[in-house]
C-alpha cells in the first residue's frame, strides 16, 4: 500500500521556523535527511523531495491545443505544499508511525494520504 506524507507550509509552520535557532534549523534539516535514509534502509521509500518556493511555480493550461504557461498564483496563498515522502508499507499504522518521525510533525503537523491503487473487486 502506498501512502503520501504531505508537508504544508503555512503561517503556523513559518512561525515555528522563525522561532528556531540556527542550530535547531540545522538539526531540522539533518533529521529530514536521516529520515529518508532510514526509510530507504527499511525498504519503504519510493520518493521524497522538498519543493522550491511557489513563486517559482508555473501554471499550465491548454486551450484550443495551445499550451499557455503563466506565473501565479496572483493572490498570495496562505498555504502550499512544501515537500513530501512517498512510501510503500503494508499498513496505515506503519505509515502513521513514519509520519510521526517527520520533523514537521513535532512543530506543526503532517498529512498521511493513501494512494489509490488498481485493485478491483467483483461482485
Amino acid at each position, binding site marked *: 500500500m502506498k501512502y503520501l506524507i504531505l508537508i504544508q507550509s503555512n503561517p503556523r509552520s513559518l512561525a515555528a521556523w522563525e522561532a528556531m535557532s540556527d542550530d535547531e534549523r540545522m538539526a531540522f534539516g539533518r533529521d529530514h535527511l536521516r529520515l529518508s535514509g532510514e526509510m530507504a534502509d527499511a525498504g519503504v521509500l519510493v520518493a521524497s523531495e522538498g519543493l522550491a518556493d511557489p513563486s517559482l511555480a508555473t501554471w499550465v493550461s491548454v486551450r484550443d491545443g495551445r499550451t499557455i504557461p503563466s506565473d501565479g498564483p496572483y493572490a498570495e496563498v496562505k498555504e502550499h505544499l512544501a515537500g513530501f515522502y512517498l512510501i510503500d508499507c*503494508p499498513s496505515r499504522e506503519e505509515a502513521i508511525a513514519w509520519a510521526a518521525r517527520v520533523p514537521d510533525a513535532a512543530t506543526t503537523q503532517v498529512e498521511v494520504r493513501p494512494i489509490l491503487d488498481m485493485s478491483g473487486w467483483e461482485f
Partner: protein
Amino acid sequence: MGVLTRIDDLLRTAAPQVLGAVVRRYGDFDTCEDAVQEALLAAARQWPAEGVPDDPRAWLIRVAARRRVEMLRSETARRRREALPPDPVPEVRGDDELTLLLLCCHPALTPVSQVALTLRAVGGLTTAEIARALLVPERTVGQRISRAKQRIRDSGARFAMPPDDELGARLTAVRQVLYLIFNEGSTASSGARLHRVELSTEAIRLARQLHARLPDDGEVAGLLALMLLTDARRPARTAPDGALVPLAEQDRSRWDATAIAEGVEIITAALSSTRLGPFQLQAAIAAIHDEATRPELTDWPQILRLYDLLRILAPGPMVTLNRVVALAEVEGPLVALGQLATAAAEPALAGHHRVAAVRAHLLEMAGDLAAARDEYRLAARRTLSLPEQRYLEARAARLR
C-alpha cells in the same frame, strides 16, 4: 517463441534449482543468493550472443560457485585468511526448490520481504524486474531482500526441510505468500502500469511447481485452482478504458476457457480426495461462477452453502460480505440487508467502504434507488481502488 524469451524462461526455471544446489553445498544462503543472481545476470548477458551452453544448469552452478569464492575472498581479505571449502561442483536435486521456497517464506520475515525474496530466489526475477512489478524503486527492493537475508541469518534458519510437525504451518505461510504475489498483480497503484512483469502469471507458475511437488496437498491444489479460475476472467474484468466490469456484466465469451477447464479439473480432484480447506472452498466458488455461461445460470444456493462452510473454516470480514451478496440472490435483498446490518456492526467492518458498496447493491435490488445512490457515493468516496471508485460513481450516476 524468440531466443530471448527462451533464454529468459530457461533462466527462471533454473534459478531456484541452481540456488538450491549451491546453498545445499555451501550453507551460506546470503552469499550464495547474491552469487547466483550474478551468475544469472552473466548468463542473460552472454548467452544471447555466445549461445546457450550444453548444460545450462552446470554452467550457472559453476559460475555461481566461482563468484561466491571471489566474494568470500574479498571479504576475508579484509579480516583474515580463512580456508575455503574445496570446490566439487554441486548437483541439482529434486527437493531443493521446495526447501528454498520454505526458506524464503520463513516466519521470521515480514510479508513484503517474503514476497521480494521469493520472487528473486525462487522466481528468478532480477531486482530491477521485481521493482518494476511492485512499482517501487530498485533500491527499495534491494533493501527488502538484503534485510530478509539478514533476518534469515540472524534467526539461524538453515537450508533444510523443516521437521514434519512444523511443515504444515510452514506450507501455510508459503501458500499465503504465493496468494499475496498473485493479488499484488492486480493491485498496482494508479500510476503507470506499463512494463510490469505479470505477477499473477508468476504466482501461477510458482503454484503450479508447488502443486507438482506436493500433489496430495489439497490446499496447494485449491490455491492453484483459485488462481487459474480467477485469472481466467481477467480479459473481461476491465473495460478498454480501464473501468471495472462487475461479474454479472462481463462478456463471458472472453473468459479463458482453457484455464477454467484446468482449474475445474484440479479443484474437482482435490475436493474428492483431500481434506477440505479455505483455498479449496474459494476455488469451488470461483468454479461455479466460471461454469455459468450466463449470470442467471449461476448456482447461487450452492455458492451460499460454500460460503457457510468458509465462514466456519476461515471466518473474515470479506467472507461475511460475500456471503451476504450470495444470500441476496437466494433469499432476496431484504433478508440480506438485515444480515448486513448485523455484520456491519462488527469492528472489522465498521466504516469499511465495501459495506456501503454491498448495501448500495442490495438497496438497488430492493428498488430503493435514492438510498442506493447515496450508498454508492459513500462507497466511492471511501474506496482506495481507482477502478472501483469509477465503477461506484458510474453506478450512482445511473440511478439519478
